[in-house]
């Protein structure tokens, strides 16, 4: 019987295994629902906002983010990203990365994959690739739905930045692409924590929860001004730096720092995950 380690657990197989799970459907539905809910709230929420929704050439008069959101599809997308990065995307990224190995352990199917044998490094590699693909899809679904919903609800006005500048067509899409890419990179950290914990524990919820709690913890530390410049070193400190892509010129350095720290922590944690998993006694 011929056995080829490089043919074990192909990406497509693992993708089907994960994609067909109910949590995938729920997470993706949330990504679609968020923009719809916000549009519904804006459209049904009193007459104050209607002035901007149907003409909008004298500003909204409100400084709320909702006011910004109703300026057009691109603006709506930016505001949806702002809403989602706080918590929703964090949870989704933690979910996809966090229960990938741990849930396999909790179903007892992990031992049969490893005894097949799927080499442990390959198993982790494929699982990570599939988790990150599902994460990417989540972000893309959010962005595309937001853009479409925004287009139908508020039209295709140029991206209007709250810090000066109006971006038309291609420029607006370019800025959205940068923002999406940066958000994905900052969420690498969350994914890596969840993934590492997923390798350590057999409880999927534990892995996801640890990542989310860590993110909350760092956010709290980040809010303590007594820590001063030390906060610059906290993971997630630069998670909102994508707003720098909304200036008339893009300023890169905060985004560069945020991306660097997220990628480095991602690599460190993934390395630890590999080290742990390669030597682990599989007791599940």
């Amino acid at each position, binding site marked *: 019987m011929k056995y080829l380690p490089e043919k074990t657990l192909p990406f497509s197989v693992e993708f089907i295994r994960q994609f067909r799970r109910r949590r995938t459907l729920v997470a993706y539905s949330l990504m679609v629902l968020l923009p719809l809910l916000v549009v519904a709230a804006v459209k049904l929420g009193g007459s104050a906002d209607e002035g901007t929704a149907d003409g909008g050439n004298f*500003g909204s008069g409100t400084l709320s983010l909702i006011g910004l959101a109703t300026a057009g599809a691109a603006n709506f997308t930016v505001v949806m990203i702002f809403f989602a990065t706080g918590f929703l995307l964090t949870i989704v990224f933690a979910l996809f990365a966090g229960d990938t190995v741990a849930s396999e352990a909790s179903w007892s199917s992990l031992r049969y994959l490893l*005894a097949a*044998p799927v080499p442990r490094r390959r198993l982790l590699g494929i699982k990570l690739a599939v988790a990150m693909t599902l994460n990417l899809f989540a972000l893309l679904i959010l962005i595309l739905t937001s853009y479409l919903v925004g287009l139908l609800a508020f039209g295709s006005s140029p991206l209007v930045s709250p810090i000066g500048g109006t971006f038309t067509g291609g420029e607006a899409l370019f800025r959205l692409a940068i923002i999406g890419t940066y958000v994905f990179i900052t969420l690498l950290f969350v994914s890596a924590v969840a993934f590492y914990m997923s390798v350590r524990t057999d409880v999927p919820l534990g892995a996801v929860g640890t990542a989310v709690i860590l993110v909350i913890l760092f956010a709290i530390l980040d809010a303590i001004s007594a*820590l*001063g410049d030390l906060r610059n070193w906290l993971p997630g400190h630069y998670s909102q730096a994508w*707003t720098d892509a909304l200036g008339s010129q893009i300023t890169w350095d905060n985004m560069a*720092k945020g991306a660097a720290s997220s990628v480095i922590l991602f690599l460190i944690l993934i*390395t630890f995950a590999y080290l742990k998993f390669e030597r682990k006694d599989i*007791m599940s």
Partner: protein
Amino acid sequence: MRLGKVASGVALVFIFIFTFSVSASADYLPDSLTIDGAPISKADKNPVKLEVNLYTPEVLPAPAVVLAHGYGGDKNSLRAQANYLREAGYVVLSYSARGFGQSTGKISMNSPEFEIADAKALIDFLATRSEVLLDTSGDPRVGLVGSSYGGALSLMVAGLDKRVDAVVSDIAWNNLETALFPQNAVGINHPGVFKQLWTGLFFNVGLTGALQLQDRCGRLEVTWCEIYESVAAAGTYSQQQARLMFESSPASTNEKVTAPTLLLAGQADSLFPLSEADANYQQISTANPQTPLKMVWHSGGHDLGVPETDRLQLLTQEWLDAHLREGNSFNEDFEVTFAQASIIGTNQPTESQAQIESAPKYQGLNNRTLTIPLAPEAQTILAPAGGVPAVISAFPGLGGFGGFLSQLIPEQTAIFQSSKLDKLARIIGSSEVKLRISSEEVHRDVVLFASLQVISESGVKSLPNGLVAPIRIPEVSSIPVEISVNLPAIAIKTQPGDSLQVVVSTTDLAYRLPLSAALYKIELASDISLATGDLVLTDRGQTLWIYAWLVLGTIILISVVLRIFRPYSVSKNRSDLSEVPVAIENLVKQFKNGPLAVNDISYKIPKGKVVGLLGPNGAGKTTTMRIIMGLINPSAGAVYVYGEKVQPGAAVLSRVGSLVEGSGFLPHLSGRENLDLYWRATGRTTTSNLDEVLTIADLGTAIDRKVRTYSQGMRQRLGIAQAMLGMPDLLMLDEPTNGLDPSQIKAMREVLHRYVDSGGTVIVSSHLLSEVEQTCSYVIVMHRGQLITEGEVSQLLSGKGNMRLEEFFLDVIGSDLTIGKSS
């Protein structure tokens, strides 16, 4: 694990840094005192009680600094700055001005008679303190530092009290009249346009607050209360009110300032714009050219902008060091920050967000050296009735939102655009343009707003800091009136390809607007004359830690790649064992903090037999099976499967099918999908015998239901089917009969015998000894991690009469049994 230790080391270092930093920044507690100030009012000569915080440094005597707060603040709002200056070695006195905090008295808007006199009393107080360095008796070495309300106060005290040795005045006004009623039409002697939104916000802080709203005036002194009420109602002011505003302004005292003065001005400030700081500079330098003066245009201001708190604190300290301590000096360069705002967060700007450029000398606002033509078409614009809808250019306290809010209203707006600029230009100060304005009917009290907008090559529009220049003209008629307009003072760099727009509009939400509708024809009477400046980038040094990050990142990346992509170690083969399904040699497994699960076991599983693995709970059966599957690493010894040493991922495992401690399936997929996907995950290239094993599983139509809905027995059968996928040479089944009914057990037995007949080997572990006896021809008995006995069932029982396997088993492992419970 070495890396684990490294990780905990790193964590410890972090904890140490955090603890250290928190303890280092633990707040120093100042002395809280109450000091008598100037009289309460003209009528009541009793002194006000001023609450102060006195911060004493470690080295004494030391120069003193009086810290004055902004409008609405109090002595405690200055704690951070006071601690900073105390650590820099100054005696710091921060206080609540009269009417603020717990200080008594009412707010008189920096009246020389009251607030300024209060500050003099504080200097008197400092002169009595032994901690404070004295110039002469009664004259302490003292600097005054303040922002906004406190900034104006600092300048005025320096003008009215010769004892002041240095001043740092941030975002102060020059004259309340010009700040609150700006008029940018040159040479028109007519009150400007009432900045009603800002003025309202400003004065209302004084009306309410900590002391509760007791009457209409709250904490405001009645004179000022009445002035505010009258101008807010009328939108203009009387000559007498203008005089009072002047007296409460640095404009009235600047000519007497001789103390070295650092003027900090905010570019993001629609309340006290750069032109106010410029007026302070011009008045001081004209009256006393020898006065050391330095002008800094930072990127903050009353509209927040991009706050540069850290840099301004350092500049303040350096200025004080240079003028309150011997042996220091500090440059008097003009410094300008070119900043790009961030919407969220108030992080200090980074190097590329905020470039600081400087020139040796402050050049004023009117260094107009560059003239650029604009498209001259005359345009007619509407002043709407009631002044609405109005353009929102800047919102008090949030001015930087201008980019979003300043969506112009086309019918109210005349735009004169330049062609593309061909090179980089710095617009530093207030540019000038001449306009010709007429209307068919006669209109009095005409209000217009002029601004300078930049359009980038890609069409991005920006209105620098949301600033507009209000113009108020007494009368416009069909005979055109020609006026020269000072556009808002700004500091920007335009790129090649940018073009400029002079925008003239009739409304702005922040200002008092005329109520009657009108149409105006706006013509251009001149090219735009740009205020420029020759500035050079100040080198602030490289941030070295970025390189540290890069090096660290590269090292990690390389080690990760090496780690992940290093070749799989090749299993050691033992050719002598290549025909032995499983050979176990001196196997030991000691779990961390656990029992010795397997204690030095050696045996061989014979080929072509159904082998029973027996033993009570905790005998080590399952651990052994998991080691054979490559799931658990042995502590010592080795397991060979068909001569190949077992380790995680060993290729020989592809010849083993197993079911250990229950089946493992994805509950959201059907039984068929589970088996299909599992087969595709095994990396085997032969065709699967899926249909054959599905017959064994005997699940009928349930095979296409989700596994979630299966009973335990159904899962068990599916698990056995999975183990048989591809007909592996060795089949290892742990409690295979769990959940099966007697007829299924019988069928299973036949399946296993057929399996052996076709050349395979089967290992079955079970606690059902009768079942084992019927199925297995060879048994291995384990107990407490040790091998008790092994051999052919027939041989083991031979010579023991009619002994059943069960009795034999009890015999060999003694009395401490837990048989019967599931293993």
